[in-house]
């Protein structure tokens, strides 16, 4: 990083189904929560970056920069970014660039999504906006379908079994029990996961992250200091359609962003103590562990069979904590911050992607325990 960027405060709504709250309400609640623990006042915020994917199609609301800005008394300049499910981390990345350039000194980064008001059909169609409208969508494909194709292929190439795959969501559910902000705080046995309804063969309902409402916010600053700083913020892209890639069992954007992030932070993957990865579907967690450098190809499952030193999705991940699309990337960073403070370890990583890994951002957080 070209300047020292501190994560000075953060806050979020509980993720879940919020039928009595609007997109604006969710944004406001997360911003208030972040400000409540801030070492400065709202007036110190000199820029806002808002992340959101489905405002127009699900909530009839665009123009979220100004909308969020009007929640603050002094209405600072604001922009909205969109990169499908990676919107949250792309907002973080954008904020880092603005801080590094000196354009701003204290930025409010907030991501929000309101998804549960629509029918399954509508939300499925809306989310397909993250895929290629000419190459993928005409066949009637959905995101569970895309990851169904990926899972089918992965099982074929590496011999992963259904029983093994069940362990992924089971661990994420177990982790969410202690997270007060999680959408599903109930344990799920591997058998329950294997017996849930088929969604897109071989993926079942409990392989899929849910449709959620929620928002998460944090303040990044070069002026105010904290024990948490950003050691790396890297962004990478790939083709939007999986049909344009040489392989579908590994995501090049994840590999690239992770490699550059470790280079930027000047650390090895082994130094990471806590990892929040993008498990939009169970299979994506295994591929992420491999692409991030924590396992050999085909071996990601070992983190679920014999958990190691590193915490994987301590928050419950997208599966159990919930996945209000654009809030996820920011929530991950918040959770890494909390985990580092609790454990006293120096490094944690957040991995967030959009579509089937067409945009991927990797952030590394450093905790000064002195």
């Amino acid at each position, binding site marked *: 990083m070209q300047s020292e960027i501190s994560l000075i405060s953060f806050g979020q709504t509980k993720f879940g189904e919020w039928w009595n709250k609007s997109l604006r309400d969710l944004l406001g609640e997360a911003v208030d929560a972040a400000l409540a623990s801030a070492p400065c006042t709202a007036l110190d915020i000199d820029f806002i970056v808002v992340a959101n994917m489905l405002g127009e199609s699900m909530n009839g609301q665009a123009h979220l920069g100004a909308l969020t800005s009007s929640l603050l008394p002094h209405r600072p300049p604001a922009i909205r970014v969109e990169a499908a499910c990676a919107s949250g981390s792309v907002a973080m990345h954008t904020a880092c660039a603005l801080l590094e350039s000196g354009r701003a000194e204290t930025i409010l980064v907030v991501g929000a999504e309101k998804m549960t008001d629509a029918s399954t059909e509508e939300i499925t169609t809306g989310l397909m906006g993250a895929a290629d409208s000419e190459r993928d969508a005409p*066949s009637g494909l959905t995101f569970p379908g895309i990851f169904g194709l990926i899972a089918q292929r992965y099982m074929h190439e590496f011999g992963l079994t259904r029983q093994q795959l069940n362990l992924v969501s089971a661990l994420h559910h177990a982790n969410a029990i202690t997270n007060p902000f999680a959408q599903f705080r109930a344990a799920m046995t591997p058998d329950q996961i294997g017996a849930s309804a088929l969604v897109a063969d071989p993926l079942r309902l409990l392989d899929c992250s849910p449709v959620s409402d929620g928002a998460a916010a944090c303040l990044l600053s070069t002026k105010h200091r904290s024990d948490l700083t950003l050691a790396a913020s890297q962004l990478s892209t790939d083709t939007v359609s999986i049909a*344009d890639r040489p392989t579908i069992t590994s995501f090049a954007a994840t590999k690239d962003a992770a490699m550059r992030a470790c280079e930027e932070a000047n650390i090895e993957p082994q130094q990471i103590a806590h990892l929040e990865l993008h498990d939009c579907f169970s299979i994506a967690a295994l591929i992420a562990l491999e692409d991030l450098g924590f396992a050999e190809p085909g071996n990601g499952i070992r983190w679920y069979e014999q958990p190691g030193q590193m915490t994987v999705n301590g928050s419950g991940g997208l599966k159990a904590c919930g996945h209000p699309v654009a809030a996820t990337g920011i929530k991950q960073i918040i959770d890494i911050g909390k985990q580092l403070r609790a454990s006293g370890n120096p490094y944690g990583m957040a991995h967030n992607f959009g579509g089937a890994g067409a945009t991927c951002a990797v952030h590394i957080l450093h905790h000064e325990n002195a």
Partner: protein
Amino acid sequence: MLPGTLLSFTTVQHPPKGFPDRPRSIGLIELSDGKRVIGSLIAPEASAPAIGRAVVPRMRLSRINEQGLRLYEVAYECTARVSEPKLNEQRHFPGYILALTGPSGVGKTTISTLLVKGLGDFTAKVPIVTSRSPKEGDEREYDYVSTQEFQVLQKNGDLVAWTKIPSETEERFYGYRKSDIAAIWSQGKLPVVVTEMHLLQGLSNHFGRRAILSLGLLPPGHSKRAMLSQLLHRMRLRGRETQEQIQERLQNAQQDLDFFTRAEHLFDHILVNEDLDTVLGTIKEHVLALVKA
């Protein structure tokens, strides 16, 4: 409409709005020309979808939309035949090298960068060991050593090919390390070298001509004069060299162009870099053909 092979498949229980038929069976298909598509599957009872199954295209009515428009699609029918497995994990390139040769300014670096980006899982660039000093505009293609160090590498036989490029301004040695190429092979990838005539000759002497998929790149133009003026134009545009260096490179380019006719046997294909996408597409085809061979 081409037939193909099923790379993966799924059955979507909840298709998006406007698709009344549910569930929908959908496949990722590699067509016979190597391109991939996503399409819906028709699976007769006798031949359920399975990876590796041959599929044939069928035009059919997909759905009628809200405006009453009849939308047709190409669906893929699974046949009983199972194609030869043409799987990612079997792509290995033992002993092969892809060489791109051409005069300065023809676009070798751009092409190899885009190629490695597009076929990153199969290809990797071989760094060029050089004794020349780093300069602005160099991307990560060089591995800088001192002239003494270069000579030690040479003497120990660590280089598979090396050359000295005449220059008024400095003594410039270039070469490839044996260990760099071996490392790429051990990852199961195809090493890509961006090279010039002496190094190509050296590689060919060391590994044997047949180990190299050798592509020559020429600037567009019907005469040598037209080609040289193209190169001059491109070099000025990219602004990487000084006026002096451009003159020097242009002289070398003249020799390079002669070399294409003199040493035809060193090339498998000569490509004219008029349109980048066409050149990249052709190279990809050649690389993928190598995989299948």
